[in-house]
């Protein structure tokens, strides 16, 4: 079984917003949480999902060592770190 830590904690994210073939894109580049930094290198998948009528964008990211799930609430503009998978390779928070 894999090593998953569920956190559901608010985090600070530095993100790039740009257009690719006229499509607006967002790439969360750096995450600060609990005094540590993670630099993301790749977006696995970004998918929108609804929670009631709130739109939440789910970003599955990696820093090359572990996978991270982030949620961006389009209403409150807040980022949340949902879980870290393969957490044994991630920086210890």
């Amino acid at each position, binding site marked *: 079984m*894999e090593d998953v830590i569920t956190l559901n904690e608010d985090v600070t994210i530095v993100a790039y917003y740009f257009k690719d073939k006229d499509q607006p894109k967002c790439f969360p580049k750096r995450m600060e949480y609990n005094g540590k930094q993670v630099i993301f290198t790749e977006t696995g998948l970004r998918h929108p999902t609804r929670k*009631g009528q709130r739109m939440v964008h789910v970003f599955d990211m990696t820093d090359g060592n572990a996978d991270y799930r982030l949620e961006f609430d389009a209403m409150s503009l807040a980022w949340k770190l949902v879980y870290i998978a393969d957490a044994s390779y991630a920086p210890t928070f």
Partner: protein
Amino acid sequence: MHLPFNRAQPEIMHIDLNSCFATVEQQARPMLRNRPVGVTNRKSAFSCIIAASYEAKALGVRVGMRADEALKLAPGIVIVETDPPKYHYVYQKLVAIMRSYSPEVTMKSIDEGIIDFNGTRQYLNARPLRDIGMEIKQRLKDEVGCWMKCNIGIGPNRFLAKQAASLHKPDGLDIIDYSNLRSTLATLSLTDLTGIAERNQARLNAVGIYTPLQFLDASSETLHRLVFHSICGDDWYQKLRGWEVDKHESQTRSVGRQYVLEDSHLSLEAVNSRLAYLCETTGVKLRYKNLCARGIMVYARYDSGDYWYNRKMFKTTFYSNAEIYRRAILVFNRRPGGNDVREIGVTCYGLEPSKENQVSLLDEVNKERWLSDAIDSINQQYGEFTLTFASSFTSRSIVKQKIPFGGTQYFDLLCSS
């Protein structure tokens, strides 16, 4: 009946995502790539693998296997739980890509669909279908992710297109038409054909048909009278020759939900709570399809393996959660004693179009409808089961909505909250 091979240009394209859920998980989580991955509906040792990555399949893991069996075969396998919104997103992307080539798109399930180019290609896409197939593969990578792969089959009918899609997995693109039909079938065994499993193979073997080529050469009379004893024999005769017999719309005849209880020794109150929850989800599906029902069927499967069911047809139609539960519990209470229920299910049948546009003369009927509409509006606004039966409240966190196999008719509904 005697028919030649269909010599028309192949215009049906079958697209099948490879190991869909496992591939999507590997796409979403790059650390899972090149590793054996199994996807289950629940994270428990007894849950069943519903999708396995190609790396897991190479180690002998098969769909339908229990998670603990998969772990014995492939100790390094990563078992992940299904994540329906993620698959829904990929499904929507795939549908959008397919619809950009032809208005005639039919999704057969969550991970496979058909583009029918008949009658539209000369106006919309005059390019060869092989080029369009290659472009779809590239667009899937560009628009969803670099790990996404799909099999594409092109044929004169749906059956041969699906058969072509299964020839070279993963990431294949094949065409079957009259020119290579015999040579392609010569490389296959009977059970490689879609729709031929052990029982149909035995039926064919009984009349001396052991290979797909012998199947192809059999007359429609032989297939009808000696093999399938029904019109299915004629359908097979036409399908194998490239004529379309599978293009038909199916109607919803029943709506229901079932659940394998987490513990077979649950109290009666807890079992009724699970049943209440199932009735609520059934009601949501029913109203989503703008239907009401007249009949209800409830079943229970016991730890001993015994199966019990009972059904009742009512004079009046019903559609609200409360009415479904009231009628379901009436039927459920008729079951034989014993608390060791392992699985329960509720199904509404005798479906009719909803009569909600017609205001009733009876005030209580109108009140029930208004109440049901108000509850649905609140749940739509704030998320499903915000307002729910008190009796099913505990089940809400236990019974999770899972991926529906086969049809995609409720997929939008299930992923909407």
